[in-house]
């Protein structure tokens, strides 16, 4: 038996309720994009002010590790997309597995990023007044790491939140809460996860690749 869609009393039909949930999520995603937009503006400004330091800083970051992190996140997004697909075709067990894989990639990403952070802490490649890294001494070198830590830190917080959401959705999916009629939560959780992924897709080249 799959759960039937029953609209809450103030909606005229389940279809309208799903539409509302989807639209609300997109509006929320717009707020997330604008939240990051301010930091991207900061990145642009300081990159143009301290171009040399941003080039040096970018070269110093571990691009190989970041590439693995990118691959991990994309794998997770694929798993979540499959979970959405399985939910629509009423295969809850597989959907739960997909969501769990997504959550696992979130944890793996955070662990890998933790490795990056530990390296920077050891080197003293830290923001503002904590900056003691001897290798890059150009003007605004600490600003690169300020921007780096703020951008990746805010993003990692979102990965953490997204991981929590995926674990919760996986638990619900395992209990058979979702079906091809009641999939809004999986869809919205998935959208959130894809956004978190997408933001990383911008961070990855800006911080690690271009020079």
């Amino acid at each position: 038996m799959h759960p039937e869609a029953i609209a809450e009393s103030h909606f005229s039909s389940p279809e309208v309720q799903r539409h509302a949930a989807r639209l609300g999520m997109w509006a929320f995603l717009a707020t997330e994009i604008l939240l990051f937009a301010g930091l991207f503006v900061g990145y642009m400004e300081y990159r143009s002010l301290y171009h040399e330091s941003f080039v040096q800083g970018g070269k110093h970051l571990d691009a190989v590790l970041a590439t693995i992190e990118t691959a991990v996140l994309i794998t997770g997004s694929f798993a979540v997309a499959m979970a959405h697909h399985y939910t629509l075709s009423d295969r809850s067990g597989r959907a739960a597995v997909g969501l769990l894989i997504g959550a696992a990639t979130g944890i793996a990403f955070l662990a890998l990023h933790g490795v990056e952070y530990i390296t920077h802490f050891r080197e003293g490649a830290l923001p503002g007044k904590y900056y003691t890294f001897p290798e890059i001494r150009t003007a605004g070198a600490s600003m690169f790491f300020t921007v780096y830590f703020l951008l990746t830190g805010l993003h990692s917080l979102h990965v953490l939140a997204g991981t929590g959401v995926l674990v919760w959705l996986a638990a619900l999916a395992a209990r058979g809460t979702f079906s091809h009629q009641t999939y809004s939560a999986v869809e919205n959780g998935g959208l959130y996860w894809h956004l978190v992924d997408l933001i990383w897709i911008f961070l990855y080249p800006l911080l690690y690749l271009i020079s």
Partner: protein
Amino acid sequence: MSPSAVEAALPARSYLNAETTLRSWLLTTDHKRIGVMYLVLILISLFVGGMFALLLRFELLTPGPTYIDAITYNRFFTLHGIVMVWFFLIPSIPSVFGNFFLPIMLGARDVAFPRLNLASVYIYLIGAAFTLAAMIHGGADTGWTFYTPYSSTTATTVTPVLLGIFILGFSTILTGINFIVTVHTMRGPGQTWMRLPLFVWAIYGTSIIQVLATPVLGLTLLLLFVEHAFKFGLFDPARGGDPLLFQHLFWFYSHPAVYIMILPGMGVISETVSCFARKNILSYKAVAYSSLGIAFVGFFTWGHHMFVSGQSNFDSGAFGVLSMFVAIFTSIKVFTWVGTMYGGAIAFKTPFAYICGFLYFLVFGGMTGIAVATISLDVHWHDTYFVVAHFHFIMVGASLMAFLAALHYWFPKMFGRTYPEGWGLVSASLIILGFNATFIPQFLLGNMGMPRRYYNYPEKFQTLHVASSAGATLLFFGFLIIFIYLVIALKYGQPAGDNPWGSRGFEWNTSSPPLPQNFEKTPVFEGQPHDYSTPVLEVSHAS
């Protein structure tokens, strides 16, 4: 007393008496009750913010120290700004009247996400608690704009204030998302976009700004918090940071925020003017689309706050011209309202008095806005009382007029009883007079060179300062009268009947106060809103 007034009685069942326990209020998901809860919270904020204003005006009665020291004065004007901007003006009309009337106007039983709606109230309360805690610990002295690098180094309790406003932002965002989705998905049968009441259009435009601009403020405050706590140097020139980046980010939110404050007010005026002129709105589409125009252009004007901050002349010129675009959309509205009044059968009731006050403050404040958007003039007026008077005229004077118009217009619908019309007109006159008396001297002071936020001033400015303080006192008494008669009217007012104004607004088709589920059966929308072209026999204005 007309016969219909004798027959009018409160309906047996309404959202107010369906459940009466405290729990039923605190855990309600009914948009009407949430609107009423916001009304209470917002009136408390207005009182707190207003008290700070009065304390400031008393201090400024004499040059030099009057009764508080300079640091306390700085803290008072900061808290006045913070409370008034974020805890009163921004949530005022959307969260109170938007919550209460948007679903009813659309023919919906509730907003799309009622639980998020309730959550927004509690988030507002948590944000307020942080800010209150900061106040008790002495409060910040940065001004409501938190300009860096001062704000990242001040020893006053700035961090809980930042957190408080950051948290409050989520309340605004949730309300905005809720309204956007409600307008898109919850419209009743026959309710097309071109039949939306004009208040809904304005709230819709406002919600878009709330959703797109508030996260930028959230980020900016978060960065400032990090800056203050950990000294990352992002905005600190001593560490290679750029304080102008802060100003850009701050005004990217805070200029659109001005339209968060004024657009709902414009919606109220569009909604009410045809009722009191008993005429169809001159051009529905012009008003509806100009709301969206303001919401759009409002995002590209922030640089006019930074003419003297060191941005390039080209930027300043562009921002100056873009700022004037707002005036085009605004004047489209103003001409439409005045054109609607022209030749109408005006019923000069309290809400109409506030409509007139709104037009006056909007035009006066708007014209001085054009003046300060002109770079060469702004260099003279920047950071003087002229700017203070300008933005108080437009974002406080006009918004407040609209808030009070809405409060009086919808009071009978919300609570089922009428307020005393005579006292309404008395207090409206007092408030309009008091507002002028407070801020016209400030225009003059600013033009003579009085800088804003100063504790001290030369003796020759004293007369105008005293006049301004006297005006503020007049304002206080105006509000006191309103508060007293509305509280009395809540219990002893005449039952209003379903439609005391004879309004054609959709919300007047329900009972006053409305049923818990808004309607007996889902209404079907067949005509345009604000349609006064055919006479209705039972029209009788409340007396």
